[in-house]
C-alpha cells in the first residue's frame, strides 16, 4: 500500500532547447494532498505534464507507483485534469460522452460499459452538478461548466493519483465547494492529489503540503501557505527588479520567445 505514488529525481525539462524546469526533486507519499503554486510561467503546468509523461524530461527520472514512467502501464491509477479543454473538435460530443471517456482506463477493448462504469460516470456528473446536462453538447457549455466536465472526466476513472491543473479557475464558489467535497472524499479513500492553483479558496482546508515554483525551480516545499504568502517576493517571478538591483535580475528571463504555432508544441 505504501509504495510511493510519485517520485521525481533531479528532473529537468527544456522546451526548444530553452531550460524551463531545472533540478527538481519531488517525492509525494501515498495519501498526500499537495498544492503546487507559483507565479504565471513558473513551470507548474510543465511540471505536471512532465510527471504524466506528456512532456519528456531532458534529464532525471519520474517514478509512478515505484515504476519508471517509461515502463509504466497502470494508467487506470492516474487521473489528469488539464488546464483547459483543447480546441473544439469538428463533431459534436455530449457531456456524458466526454465524461465517459474518463472511464476508458478501466474498460477492456470491445466491451460495453459495465454497471460499475455507468454508476461511476453518473456519480462524477453529480459531483460537478451537471447530471441534468449529460445530453447537452460540451461546446454549448460555459467555460466554467466545461472545466467541471474535465474534472468529472478525471473523477470517473476513480484514480489513486490525481493531477489537477487549476481545476477551479473560472468555477463559481458553490461548485468549488462541491469539488472540495469530492476531492475530500477521494482523499479520505487514500488517493494522492497534486493540485495546481493560484488561489486555493475552499480547497485550502484539504491541502497538507505546499510546493511553490519559481522560475522553473522549487522555491518552497513544506507546510501549507496562506494565499498571500505565496505572493511573497521571494517566490514571485515578476517585479524582480524592484527587489534586486544587483544587475543579476537583468539577465533574467528575457530570452526571445522562439516558437511557431507548430513547433515544440508536442
Amino acid at each position, binding site marked *: 500500500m505504501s509504495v510511493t505514488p510519485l517520485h521525481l529525481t533531479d528532473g529537468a525539462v527544456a522546451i526548444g532547447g530553452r531550460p524551463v524546469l531545472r533540478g527538481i526533486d519531488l517525492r509525494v507519499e501515498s495519501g498526500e494532498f499537495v498544492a503546487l503554486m507559483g507565479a504565471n510561467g513558473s513551470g507548474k503546468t510543465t511540471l505536471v505534464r512532465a510527471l*504524466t*509523461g*506528456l512532456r519528456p524530461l531532458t534529464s532525471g527520472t519520474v517514478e509512478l507507483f515505484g515504476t519508471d514512467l517509461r515502463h509504466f*502501464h*497502470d*494508467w*487506470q491509477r*492516474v*487521473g*489528469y485534469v*488539464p488546464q483547459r*479543454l*483543447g480546441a473544439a*473538435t*469538428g*463533431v*459534436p*460530443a*455530449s457531456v*456524458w*460522452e*466526454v465524461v*465517459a*471517456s*474518463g472511464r*476508458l*482506463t478501466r*474498460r477492456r*477493448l*470491445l466491451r460495453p460499459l459495465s454497471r460499475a462504469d455507468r454508476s461511476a460516470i453518473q456519480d462524477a456528473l453529480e459531483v460537478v452538478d451537471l447530471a441534468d446536462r449529460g*445530453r*447537452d*453538447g460540451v461546446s*454549448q457549455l460555459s467555460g466554467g461548466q466545461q472545466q467541471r466536465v474535465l474534472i468529472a*472526466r478525471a473523477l470517473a*476513472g476513480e484514480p489513486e493519483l490525481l493531477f489537477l491543473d487549476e481545476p477551479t479557475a473560472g468555477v463559481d464558489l458553490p461548485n468549488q465547494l462541491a469539488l472540495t467535497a469530492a476531492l475530500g472524499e477521494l482523499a479520505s479513500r487514500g488517493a494522492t492529489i497534486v493540485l495546481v492553483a493560484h488561489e486555493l479558496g475552499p480547497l485550502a482546508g484539504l491541502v497538507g503540503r505546499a510546493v511553490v515554483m519559481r522560475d522553473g525551480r522549487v522555491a518552497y516545499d513544506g507546510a501549507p501557505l496562506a494565499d498571500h504568502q505565496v505572493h511573497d517576493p521571494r517566490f514571485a517571478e515578476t517585479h524582480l527588479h524592484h527587489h534586486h538591483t544587483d544587475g543579476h535580475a537583468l539577465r533574467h528571463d528575457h530570452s526571445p520567445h522562439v516558437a*511557431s504555432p*507548430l*513547433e515544440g*508544441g*508536442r
Partner: protein
Amino acid sequence: MLDIFSYPFMQRALLAAFFTGLAAPAVGTYIVQRRLALLGDGIGHVAVTGVALGLLTGIAPTWTAVTVAVLGAVLIEIIRERGHTNGDVALALLFYGGLAGGVLLTGLGGQSAARLQEYLFGSITTISVGDVWVTMAFAAVVILIGVGLAPQLFAVAQDEEFARVAGLNVRAYNLLVAVLAAVSVTIAMRTVGLLLVSALMVVPVATSQQLTRSFRTTLGAAMVLGMVASVGGLSLSALAPAGTRVAPGSTIVLLSLAGFVVTWPLGAWLRRRQLQRAPFPALPPDETATPHDAAQHDHDHGPACGHAAIPHGDHVDYVHDGHRHAPHEQHYDEH
C-alpha cells in the same frame, strides 16, 4: 426502364454502394472530428497512382490501389504528426504527385484516359464479382473497427493528451484511422470514384451533425445518410436517359449535398428552438426588475398563446420581444 435493376452488374454495383456508403462515413466521422476533412481527398489523389500501377502491370487495380493508398495515408499521418510548419505544403506535393503519376503511368501503359476515368468518378458496369467480395470484406472490417473501437477512437480525437494519460497508444490509433481511411477510399473508388470519395466521408457527417448533439448519434446518422446517398445516387445514375452516361460519383455526391442543403435550415431551426426551450436556472427572481405593464399585452400568456413557455423553477416564464414574463397576481413580473 427499371429493368436495369435486374441486371447482375447493377445488383453488384448496388451491393458495393450499400457497403461503401456505410463504411466511408464511419471513418469520416473521426476524420472530421480531428478537423482533417481533406485527408480522404489527399489519399484519393495518391491512390490514382496505385490504380495506374495496376493498369500498367496487369495486377488487379484494387490491390495496387489499396497498397499505395495505405502507404500514402501512413506518410500523410507521419508528416502531420511531426507537425512540420510546411506540413500542408508537403501534403499538397504528395497529392499532386499522386494524381500526375497516375495519369503518366496510365499513358505509358497505353491505356485510354477513359479507363482511368472509371476509377476517378466511379462506374456501374465494371464492378466484377471479385470486386464486390473485396468491397464487402473491407467495408465490414472498416465498420467493425469504426464502431467497435468508437470509445477509444473518440477519446483520442477528442483530447489527444488526455487519451495519452489514460494509457491509450495515441499514435497507433491515429495510424489506424489513416489506414482505415485509405481502405475506405479504395473500396469507394468503384462507385463514387477517387476524386469524389472524400465527399462521401465528409458530407454525411456534416449533414448529420446539423441535427445531433452527441458523437454516437452523429456517427450512426452519418452512416445511414452515406448509405442512402450512395445507393440512391447509384440508382439515379443508372436511370440516366438512354444515350447518356452519367458517372455514379456525380449523382452520389450531389444527392449527399442535397441532403446537407435540406438539413441545414432544419438544423438551424432545431438549435434555435432547443435553446429557447431550455429551462432557466431556478434562481429566485430579481425583485428589483420593473414589472411589465399588463396593458402592453393584447392577451394573457398561457400554454396556447404561442409564446415560448419555458420552465423556471416552480413556474413558467413566457418569452416575447426580448422579455421574460411570469404571471403574478394581476400583472407580469419581469424575470
